[in-house]
C-alpha cells in the first residue's frame, strides 16, 4: 500500500512538474500552452494504442513484439490508401474514413493472428528466437510497405477530407483542429473499454491470471494457447487502429513505425512490464513529456532533434532510476 501511494504521488509530481515547466516556458501565453497540452495528449493517446498491445502481450506471453510499430504503420497505410482510392471515391467522405479505419484494423488483426499462429507458436521453447523473429517481421513488413507504396511518405490532404478532420474549435483565443481532440477521446474511450474487458469479463480474468502465471492457468484446464492468439490479434489490431486514426493527421510514411515503437516501449517500461494501469498512465506521461520537450527545444534551443530523442532519453532514465517501472513488480 505504501508503495502504491508513493507511486501515485510520483505520477502526480512528475505530471505537475511537466505542466508547470511547460506553462512557465510558454511565458503565460495560454494558447501556446494549450497547443503543447493538446499535442501531448494526442501523442499519449496514440502511444497508448501501440503500447497497450505491447504490454499485455509481454505480460501474458513474455514476448516483446518489436513488430508492433509495423502494425501501426500498416493501419496508417491501409486507411490512407483506401480513403484516397479512386474506385471508392463514390462513397461519402464521412463514411469512407470509418470504413478505411475498419479495414486497416481488420488487416492489422489478421496479420497479427498470422504472426502468432504461424511464426511465433513454433518458437515458444526458444524465447530469444521469438524476439529475433518479431524484429525480423518488423523489417519484412517495413520492406513490404516500401515495395507496395514506395519510399515517399504520404500526407493527408485537407481539401478532400471528412467532417471532423476539417472542423476546428477555439480555446484561449486560438484555433485548434478538433481532430486531435477526437483522437484523444478515442484513446481514452479505448483505455476504459480495454480496462473493462480485462476487469469484468471472463476472458479478461483469464488474461490477467495468465499474466500472473500462464502455466497455472493452463493447469486449470484453460486453453492458454487460444487466449495467446486472441490477445496477440487484438493487440496488433489496436496498434493498427492507432495508425489508422493517426493517418489523417500524420499521413503515412516509413518512419512512423520506429517513431511510435520506441516511445511505446518507453511507456511499457515506465508503466512496469505487463501492468495495464501503468501503460495507460505512462502513455500520457510520455506523450506530455515529448510534447513539452518538443515545444521547448524548438522555441529556445532551436533544435528539433531533441523531441525525436526524448523517448529514448526517457527510456534510459527509467532503466537507470526505476527499472521496475511505476506499477511493476520488482522485475528480474
Amino acid at each position, binding site marked *: 500500500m505504501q508503495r502504491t501511494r508513493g507511486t501515485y504521488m510520483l505520477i502526480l509530481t512528475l505530471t505537475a512538474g511537466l505542466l508547470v515547466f511547460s506553462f512557465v516556458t510558454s511565458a503565460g501565453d495560454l494558447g501556446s500552452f494549450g497547443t503543447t497540452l493538446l499535442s501531448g495528449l494526442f501523442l499519449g493517446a496514440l502511444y497508448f494504442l501501440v503500447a497497450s498491445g505491447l504490454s499485455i502481450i509481454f505480460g501474458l506471453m513474455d514476448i516483446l513484439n518489436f513488430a508492433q510499430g509495423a502494425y501501426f504503420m500498416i493501419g496508417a497505410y491501409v486507411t490512407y490508401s483506401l480513403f484516397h482510392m479512386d474506385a471508392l471515391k463514390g462513397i461519402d467522405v464521412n463514411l469512407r474514413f470509418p470504413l478505411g479505419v475498419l479495414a486497416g484494423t481488420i488487416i492489422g488483426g489478421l496479420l497479427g493472428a498470422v504472426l502468432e499462429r504461424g511464426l511465433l507458436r513454433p518458437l515458444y521453447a526458444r524465447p530469444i528466437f521469438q524476439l529475433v523473429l518479431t524484429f525480423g517481421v518488423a523489417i519484412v513488413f517495413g520492406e513490404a510497405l516500401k515495395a507496395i507504396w514506395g519510399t515517399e511518405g504520404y500526407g493527408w490532404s485537407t481539401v478532400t477530407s471528412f467532417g471532423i478532420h476539417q472542423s476546428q474549435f477555439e480555446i484561449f483565443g486560438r484555433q485548434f483542429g478538433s481532430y486531435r481532440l477526437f483522437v484523444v477521446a478515442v484513446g481514452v474511450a479505448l483505455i476504459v473499454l480495454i480496462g473493462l474487458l480485462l476487469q469484468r469479463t471472463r476472458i479478461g480474468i483469464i488474461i490477467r491470471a495468465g499474466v500472473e502465471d500462464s502455466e497455472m492457468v493452463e493447469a486449470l484446464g484453460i486453453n492458454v494457447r487460444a487466449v495467446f492468439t486472441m490477445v496477440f490479434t487484438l493487440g496488433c489490431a489496436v496498434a493498427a487502429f492507432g495508425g489508422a486514426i493517426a493517418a489523417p493527421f500524420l499521413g503515412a510514411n516509413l518512419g512512423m513505425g520506429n517513431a511510435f515503437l520506441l516511445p511505446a516501449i518507453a511507456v511499457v517500461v515506465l508503466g512496469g512490464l505487463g501492468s495495464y494501469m501503468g501503460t495507460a498512465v505512462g502513455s500520457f506521461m510520455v506523450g506530455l513529456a515529448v510534447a513539452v520537450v518538443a515545444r521547448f527545444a524548438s522555441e529556445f534551443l532551436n533544435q528539433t532533434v531533441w523531441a525525436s530523442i526524448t*523517448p529514448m532519453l526517457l527510456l534510459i532514465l527509467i532503466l537507470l532510476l526505476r527499472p521496475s517501472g511505476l506499477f511493476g513488480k520488482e522485475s528480474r
Partner: protein
Amino acid sequence: MQSIQTLPRWRRVLQSNWLYLAVLVFLIVFPHLVGWITGDSPFGVGGRPRGQSVFWQSVFIEVFILTILTMSYNLIFGFTGVISFGHALFFGLGGYILGLVLQMTDLGPEIGLVVGGVIGVIVCGLLGFLMGLVSLRLRGVYFAIFTLAIAEMFFIYIGRWPLTNAEDGFALNNIPELLNSTRNRLTYYYVALVLVILTFLFIRRLINSPTGKVLLAIRENENRAQAIGYNTLTFKLVAITLAGMMAAGAGMLHVILNKKVGPETLGLTYTVDPLLMTIIGGVGTHAGPIIGTAGLHLSERVFNREFIIGSTTINIGQNWSLILGIVFIVVVLVFPQGVVGTWARWRQRRRAARAPTESGRSG
C-alpha cells in the same frame, strides 16, 4: 591411420584447420587469380583503380569488414546468448570518432589514425560496458530494448548534428597513403584480410579459454552458471565490451574504405545485417559468421540487378531487403542452427546411420 593424438603438433593444426587454411590460401591469391584470368592487373589499370580484379577486391574488402562485424555480434549473440538490437551503434560510432580525429585535428594522417583508432575502440568498449552495466542486471529483454533505444538515439542525433554535416556526413581525405583504397587497394585488401584473421583467431582463442567456457555456460543456462558461483554479469560485460571494440574496428575499416563518414553507418541496417548473417550462417559457430556474411553479401552482388525472364523484367535488387527478411524468417523457423549447424547435424546423422553397417562388416 595414425591416431590424431600421436601426430606432431603442426600436423594436428593442419588436420583440424585444413578447410580454413584452404580458404585463406584462396583469399591470398584471389586478386592475382582474377587478374590473371581477366588480364586486368590487380594493381589497377594505368595507375587507376580499374578492372575486374580491383572491382572484386573492393567487394571482398566489404565482405571482410562485415565479417568482423558479424563475428563480433556472434560473440555476444551466438556465444553468450545476449541479444542486442543496437550493434550498429559501435560500428558507426567507431567510424565517426576516427573520422573526426582525422579531419578535425592536425595530427597528420598516420598519428591521427593511431590516435583516432585507439580512442574509438576505447570509447566503444566503454559504451558497451556501461550499457551492459545498466541493463544486463535486469531480464534479457531489457538489454535488447536498451541497445535499440541508444542506437536509435545516436542515429537520430548524429543524423542532424551540424558538426558532422548532419545527414550528408563528411568526406575523409586525410588518410595515410598506404591505406588509400583508391591507389593502394591491394594493400588495403591484405590489411583487412589480416584483421579478419586476427579477429577470428582471437574469438576462437577466447571461446576455448576458461572465460569462453563460462560464456557458453551463460548461454546454455545462466541460472546454473550463477549457482556454480560465477558472477555472470562480469562475464557478459567482458563479452559486450570486446564485441563493441571489434565492431568499432570494423566501422573504422568501413570509413577508410569508403573515405566517407555518414549517419547511415549508425542505422538499423548495420544491426540487422550482422543479425541475419549470424543466424543464416550458424549461431554460435566459428565458421557461421564467415559463411553467412560471404554468402549474403556475394549473392546480393550477383542478384542485385535486373533479370529478364521471358518478356518480363524482374528487378530483384529493389526488393532485396524484403527477400532477405523472408529468408531470415524461414531460417529462424526451419533451420535455426543456420548453415553450419544444419550441416553438422546432417553429417552426424549420416555417420550415425552408417556406423552399424560398418561394424557389421568388420565383425
